[in-house]
């Protein structure tokens, strides 16, 4: 199950459509790290609204994804973690430390606008 990655301005938006296997998740991570360079993106949004389970592997892979894209010069924000998924994650000790999150796509875009502006040289 390939995750479609859309380019919108300076951002890449990966919208997860269905449950992902480990291999799919690793694919997504690598595809985004590569596409950040290809499209010279400054921000990445990963929308996980449809995911009903975020287990240890998924959490770790998303964290790696966020750190990899940051090393490539783009900020990543994870959006759409459902309340019960958040509860399960906390019980498992999966806090996505060091990773930015936002409520939904709209908030994610606003977050990136603010965050990337700070680094954009003026004039």
């Amino acid at each position: 199950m390939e995750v479609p990655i859309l380019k919108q301005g300076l951002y890449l938006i990966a919208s997860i459509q269905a449950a992902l296997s480990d291999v799919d998740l690793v694919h997504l991570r690598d595809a985004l790290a590569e596409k950040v360079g290809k499209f010279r993106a400054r921000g990445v949004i990963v929308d996980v609204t449809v995911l009903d389970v975020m287990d240890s592997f998924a959490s770790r892979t998303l964290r790696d994804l966020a750190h990899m894209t940051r090393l490539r010069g783009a900020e990543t924000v994870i959006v759409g973690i459902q309340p019960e998924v958040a509860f399960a994650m906390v019980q498992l000790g999966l806090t996505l430390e060091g990773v930015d999150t936002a409520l939904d796509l709209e908030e994610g875009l606003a977050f990136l606008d603010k965050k990337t502006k700070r680094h954009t040289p003026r004039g």
Partner: protein
Amino acid sequence: MASEAVIPINSDVDVVAARQKGRELAVELGFVSTDLTLLATAISELARNIIRYAKHGEILIASVQSGERVAITVVARDKGPGIANISLAMQDGFSTSGGLGLGLPGVKRLMDEFHLVSDANKGTTVTIKKWKR
């Protein structure tokens, strides 16, 4: 209404299949949404441990009835290397430090009942139960 399923666990796609089966059964039994997620997440972690440490195993998901109450029992078993130090495996390291990083204390927190049997070189069986609320 007794139903059960056995899902062989041999690769990462089976992890997804197992947790979806668990969720399906829990939906049939009328579990609340939060508990569907907790159950599916617990199954995912147990299936993942099988792949990581034993390579192969199986997950058995069944409904059990006790008087008026209904529960789902999940048995995750493998014939892998087993867990040498069970108390260490059950130590809460929040998967970062301490503990063995098996996530078992987390799985225990997600469930109502948790039982672990493991013998070196004979394998591991984890049994968990979630009651319908």
